[in-house]
């Protein structure tokens, strides 16, 4: 259960490998509580679990930032932090073509943003945050200084 997982994660220096199947039962039960009850006591109970989940996130993302490898159901998700770091470092160290906080990117696939269609080969100037999101989706690639 979640308390044991968090305890483990707290006491161990490495990161534990959390299987999604170890969480199924918990997620399913908490969803049911959430759906069935709305009294204060159940709200308190849910907040206890939410805070535990928050601690799990804090512990695992802190470890990732320290350079510890994260395994388990959330490894791909938390890996976004590494992607964020890459973008941050590239931005500050002049690896991108930029105007203020915006980065020149090349469109890889057709998609739309703010009601505007973009086509492969188009150029687009985007702030850091959107660059991350669109890289995650593999829609764009920042043009790099070489």
């Amino acid at each position, binding site marked *: 259960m979640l*308390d044991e997982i968090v*305890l483990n994660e707290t*006491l161990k220096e490495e990161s534990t490998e959390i299987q999604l199947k170890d969480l199924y039962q918990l997620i399913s039960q908490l969803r049911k*509580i959430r759906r069935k009850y709305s009294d204060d006591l159940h709200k308190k109970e849910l907040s*206890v679990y939410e805070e*535990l989940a928050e601690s*799990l996130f804090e512990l695992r993302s802190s470890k990732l930032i320290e350079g510890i490898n994260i395994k388990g159901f959330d490894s791909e998700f938390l890996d976004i932090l590494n992607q964020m770091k890459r973008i941050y470092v590239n931005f500050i160290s002049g690896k991108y073509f930029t105007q203020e906080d915006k980065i020149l990117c090349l469109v890889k696939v057709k998609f739309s943003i703010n009601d505007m269609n973009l086509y492969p080969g188009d150029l687009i100037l985007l702030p850091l945050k959107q660059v991350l999101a669109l890289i995650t989706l593999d829609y764009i690639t920042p043009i790099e200084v070489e």
Partner: protein
Amino acid sequence: MSLLSIQLKALSRVNMLIKKKIMVLEDWGPFDDGFEEISLSKGSEDEVRFWLAKELQKNSLVKISESISLDELGRILFQERQNINTPASLVKVPKDFYYRISVLLEDLKKENSLEALEQLRKARQLLEEIVSIRIRKIIQLAFLKISDQNILDKLTAEEILVYRNIKYTIEHNIGDIIGYTTS
């Protein structure tokens, strides 16, 4: 300041799901906590998770038994003082020692009498002194690189984290600077 505080916060959250012994003061339930159905009968002893025990105690429906008394605190402080400079002399306390104290403090706060106020003051003072001595001993342990399991068993989970944090600080970091620099 970082991971230690994140870890201690996590520990206190984990503790919320640990079952604690209670005295039931009023019939209560049934309550479906999603994992089991809980019904409490007045006058019986029972066990419920800490978060629930605290909520019920707030409404005077139960009393958490796993507290600690002022006398016990006094006794622990006396023992700690006996060998104030011998780190290995740490008194073995319950793993949930600090949570028990928190229950005591909350109890006393709730009573709202002059006597309780005085006891609250006393309890806080005892806690402060105990923590101060134990931390000094823990620092000594870390500094002397003592990692004897029998001694570490005397610490609470929180103290172990503090011990590890200090040990890590002592052992690694100055060396690491040289490491970073020569790399």
